[in-house]
């Protein structure tokens, strides 16, 4: 146990090429999918939170329900879409990082949208009469609501990041854990552990842990000493 830990730390400290490659791909795939999820999910969630429209309650419920999608099922769905007989086979991205980004985006977007809706809904009610009085159009309203909630939305993005980077089920199905191509931290940990390569698994696990703690700390700093959301 002790030797494994020392060896894992040594792997990280000397910048082992394989460890770095896997960690870098994890970060790239996760960052891309969180960006896409925020770009889609934040305006979507804000719109559901801000505007009265028929079916709003159903939309709210749907977002919450989709938040709990089982990753493996999402992976399977994306697999079926991208596989040779699937409607998106012409994209030719199965077992590539792009497929992993697609799967993680599907997984994280409902989470981002549902959390954004919660963040925005209260303030939208507070601002409703003002927006109406100023005759602000829907796009201006959405932008204002998102901008005013930016502190809380940083936390939302973080939650999305946390879900995406720690996720195994979807990326292993559509990525396949191919060395030097689609092998990310979670899939490598799962694989290397089962192969008994505990040093590499632990090294990657420590990095994963460090990233999670680091991102959390960054958001705390972003919020300022009082813990209040940025004004």
């Amino acid at each position, binding site marked *: 146990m002790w030797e494994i830990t020392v060896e894992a730390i040594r792997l990280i400290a000397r910048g082992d090429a394989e460890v770095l490659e896997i960690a870098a791909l994890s970060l790239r795939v996760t960052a891309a999918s969180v960006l896409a999820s925020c770009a889609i999910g934040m305006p979507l969630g804000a719109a559901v939170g801000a505007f009265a429209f028929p079916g709003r309650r159903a939309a709210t419920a749907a977002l919450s329900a989709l938040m709990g999608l089982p990753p493996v099922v999402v992976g399977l769905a994306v697999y079926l879409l991208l596989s040779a007989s699937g409607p998106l086979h012409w994209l030719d991205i199965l077992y590539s990082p792009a497929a992993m980004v697609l799967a993680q985006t599907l997984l994280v977007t409902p989470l981002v949208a549902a959390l954004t809706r919660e963040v925005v809904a209260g*303030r939208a009610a507070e601002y409703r009469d003002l927006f109406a009085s100023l005759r602000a159009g829907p796009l*201006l309203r959405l932008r204002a609501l998102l901008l005013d909630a930016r502190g809380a939305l940083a936390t939302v993005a973080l939650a999305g990041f946390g879900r995406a980077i720690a996720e195994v089920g979807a990326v292993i199905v559509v990525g396949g854990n191919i060395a030097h191509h689609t092998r990310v931290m979670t899939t490598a940990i799962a694989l290397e552990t089962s192969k008994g390569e505990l040093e590499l698994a632990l090294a990657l696990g420590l990095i994963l842990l460090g990233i999670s703690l680091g991102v959390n700390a960054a958001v705390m700093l972003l919020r300022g000493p009082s813990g209040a959301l940025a004004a």
Partner: protein
Amino acid sequence: MSGAPPPLIEARGLTVEAPGETPRRRLLDGVDLAVPAGGRLVVMGPNGAGKTVLLRALHGLVPHGGTLLWRGRPAPPGPRRGQALVFQRPVLLRRSVLANLRFALAAAGAPRRVRTPRAEAALGEAGLLHLAHRPAAVLSGGEAQRVALVRALLAAPDLLLLDEPTASLDPEATRAVEALLARAAAAGTALVLVTQDPGQARRLGGEGAILRRGRIAARGPVAALPVGGAWGPLDDGGPAGLGAAP
């Protein structure tokens, strides 16, 4: 055709019902009023009389019954172009004062490059330039009220609806707000002002109305209205409201 222009805003038998209540309860019950372009109307009355509801109905924030004419035509639904409302409780976006004013200009369709200079000029005129970069969330109640007024004046409305705009202001700030209102009035903006301050009503002058239980109980030139002291004398002759017949 009569030569006289129609009032800027005119209500005939204006009613507002409490939303979603059965039996129906009228918050406004047959209000008649008219304000000419550039005119002013001071509305007073006890708490809960319906003053805020009246302003919201005139502005188009709540559905109403009866007739409401804006510039001589049936008022279109929703807040009308050319009107601005200063809320009793100021609502400011969670950003700097300047950004709040820029937002109002953006909503009014002002081109991006003129927003900052116009916002700064408006703050300067109101003597509030030192607040420009303050987050709106940290403003005092009185400061927020004045910023909200500056924001309402930005679009140079033809009709400015004011809901107790000096309720939380110190005497000096009250004078400053009244000076702003006088300037807007001199520039041709019509005012409908709700106030609890008889002195302010007299200083502003013009037409006055006293609202009670959703109806206009008295109207006339402010100087002639029984606006001093308690509302009692209006209460079916009872003394100072206490023990008066309902």
